[in-house]
């Protein structure tokens, strides 16, 4: 009688509790609406001609200039900014794909 009342096997308890987080679902920012810009090339020979054309178009005859090397640097800087945007976008897409199971559009 004593032996029967002290069993060594105890019931096993397994707890499974899964609560999914609410997805963040933030919208992409709006695509920038760039304004048109126009480049003017001025050298010692055509400067007067360029300024008179600006006057004709009722544009202030003043130029904010860059040298050829400055233009090259600006182009490269612009490319680097774009590359950064592309990389950030890909990282964001991959995070969404991984955590929210949202595939990016195929035709991209």
């Amino acid at each position, binding site marked *: *009688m004593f*032996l*029967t*009342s002290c*069993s060594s*096997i*105890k*019931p*096993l308890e*397994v707890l*499974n509790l899964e609560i999914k987080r609410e997805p963040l679902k933030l919208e*992409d*920012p709006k*695509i*920038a609406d*760039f304004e048109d*810009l*126009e*480049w*003017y*090339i*001025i*050298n*010692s*020979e*055509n400067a007067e001609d360029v300024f008179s054309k600006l006057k004709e178009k009722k544009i202030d005859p003043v130029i904010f200039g860059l*040298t*050829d*090397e400055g*233009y*090259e640097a600006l*182009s*490269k800087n*612009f*490319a*680097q*900014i*774009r*590359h950064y*945007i*592309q*990389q950030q*976008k*890909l*990282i964001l897409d*991959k995070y969404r*794909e*991984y955590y929210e199971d949202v595939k990016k*559009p195929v*035709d*991209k």
Partner: protein
Amino acid sequence: MLGIFSGAKMIFIGVILTAVVGGFLYVKGLQKDLAVAKENMIKMEQAISDQKKVIEQQKIDFEAIIRANKELVEQQNKLTEEYKSLDKKFNKINASGKKRDLGALAIKKPRPIEKIINKGSDHATRCVRVAMGEPITEEEKNATKKSQINPICPDLVNPSYVPY
């Protein structure tokens, strides 16, 4: 005499009864243990099955991580190449072995260079818009010739273009 026998009989019956009741309770206990053990077995099998699912999901996750990293590296390599080609555009070596000098060209032919710069600026702006997520047009998508593509970022804007 009879009293002694009667007492021994009572003790004997008592022992038998105790043994029977004890045996019955022992078997009952064993049956209960068996039922618990069975239940535990089912729970353990379920736990093993759940663990297998977790391991499977982890495998899928690792593969997804590796794939995402691979894509990032590929993009990085493409962008590095693109940057190098931009550098080449500015410093291209011409047929006479001299480095392209945009300044000298602009002194010589300001109007054509102005047009090229403005077109290049439009292309660069378009590249940024697409990088931000603007969809590409059908025309851009189907462009295969050099004259049709965006020379600043063909990988991004002209997926059908194969450099030649």
